[in-house]
């Protein structure tokens, strides 16, 4: 993530901590699409992605006093999103990474302009074990450094590297088959 963008977000968060609603509005408009994208790539469910995204920002606002600007507020936001996502997945008690038909069904609904590669890629991502999938998505689509990912997921830096390595391997294997 570019330094300018980081600076801008930190500035907004400072203002949010002082109850500045317009800063929160800007913050929301800038980061909602990213959060939404993150949840969507984990679920491929529009409605659920919207819901979790909204809840993420509500909780961010509610815990604005605890956000520290010297430690990646964007990572904090993603942490909230990740927790809500995992709760939701657990409550649904669904095991994403296994059933081929289930995954096919999930992706089948309403995908219009999609080529084979994209379709296969979606399947590959869904088949990743949960931690691998989260790490991969955070790195590839949201440009988080490994250290930041470690913070979001509450794991060690080494684990992030290992799991990242595993993810790439699994995806390659799947795409080649």
């Amino acid at each position: 993530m570019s330094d300018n963008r980081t600076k801008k977000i930190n500035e907004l968060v400072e203002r949010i901590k002082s109850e500045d609603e317009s800063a929160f509005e800007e913050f929301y408009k800038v980061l909602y699409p990213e959060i939404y994208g993150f949840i969507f790539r984990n679920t491929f469910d529009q409605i659920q992605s919207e819901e979790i995204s909204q809840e993420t920002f509500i909780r961010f606002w509610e815990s604005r006093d605890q956000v520290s600007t010297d430690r990646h507020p964007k990572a904090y936001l993603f942490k909230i999103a990740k927790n809500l996502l995992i709760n939701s997945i657990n409550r649904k008690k669904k095991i994403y990474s296994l059933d081929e038909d289930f995954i096919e069904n999930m992706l089948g609904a309403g995908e219009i302009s999609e080529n084979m590669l994209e379709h296969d890629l979606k399947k590959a991502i869904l088949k990743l074990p949960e931690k691998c999938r989260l790490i991969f998505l955070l790195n590839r689509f949201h440009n988080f450094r490994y250290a930041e990912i470690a913070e979001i997921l509450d794991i060690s830096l080494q684990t992030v590297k290992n799991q990242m390595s595993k993810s790439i391997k699994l995806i390659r294997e799947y795409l080649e088959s």
Partner: protein
Amino acid sequence: MKKITEENKIDFFTCYLNGELEEAEKIHFEREIEKSEKLRIEFEEFKTFWKNLGTVEVPEVTDINNKYSELKERIKFTETEVKKNRNFISKNIYHNEIFNKKRELFGWTIRFAALLLLSIILYQILIIDHSRQTTITAANEQPEEYYHITKRGERSEIILPDESKVYLNSSSRLSYSSNFNENQRLVKLEGEAFFEIEPNKNLPFIVKTKHNMVKVVGTKFNVYNRDDEFVVAVSEGKVMAIDNQGSIVSLEKNQAAEMKGNNELVKTTGIDIEQFIDWRKEKLAFKNEPLYKVMNEIELTFNINTFFKESSLRGRKLTGSFDARSLNEILTAISISLNVDFEKEGNRIIIH
């Protein structure tokens, strides 16, 4: 310096493209690439692969402003709810206490009441002042809350700004903001209500209860929320029931979802929707009643006004028992049996 092997070359590629290699490692890697043709080709291949990994499309977010309004409403409801509640109830409590206090405290409570009254008046004045200003500077506009409250044994029919209808059961409360239907359709419910929602794809209709939410585009459904119990039952259309964690249960006609306490939403299919909206079955029965009495009854039940354009119709006698579920159904039945015409004009029914 770590050697680049078959085992770890993928990791090297990934870290290099991610900028995760330290400066020394980076230089080492670039040198190795230059040295080995094979490695360079593999790296180029990986670069393409890495690029393709980014092709997972995500639906575009088109209505971000609406979404922000919806968010604001949801945040506001949880924060101001407590304050408004206190304001609303405290008036009654203090009023009662004035009469129950002992004589020695009488003087103090009078003073307190006067102060409270004064502050309420001031508050009202401030609101009026503020709303005058907001017509000029819309940027700082504070939307007002509208409340519909039913007492015990009371029921009401509410028509929302978007023409959606809400049938409120007794001891219930429905509230929404004054900018409802501008960029959001969010209502808050405590108690029970049956909803008939006008379709609007751009503004989903949301019912918020203590721990849950119901989200629809246009449909008919019943929502029940007292204390920590929540039940939603669908009469028509498709409805999304959501809990605090964002878990969603999708419901269709003759399906219901229930949640007790802070547990999961449990879905039930094949329900008899009539059971869930039994409370609405108020029977209006008439035996040889003159029409003006009938219309009186209808006025009380549905909270509307009626007006006889032709006064000779007032004496027409009506006998029958009506399921008081829908005003339109009753009017249709009456118009057929008595050969009268009903015309709806805003909140009035004109009989001729």
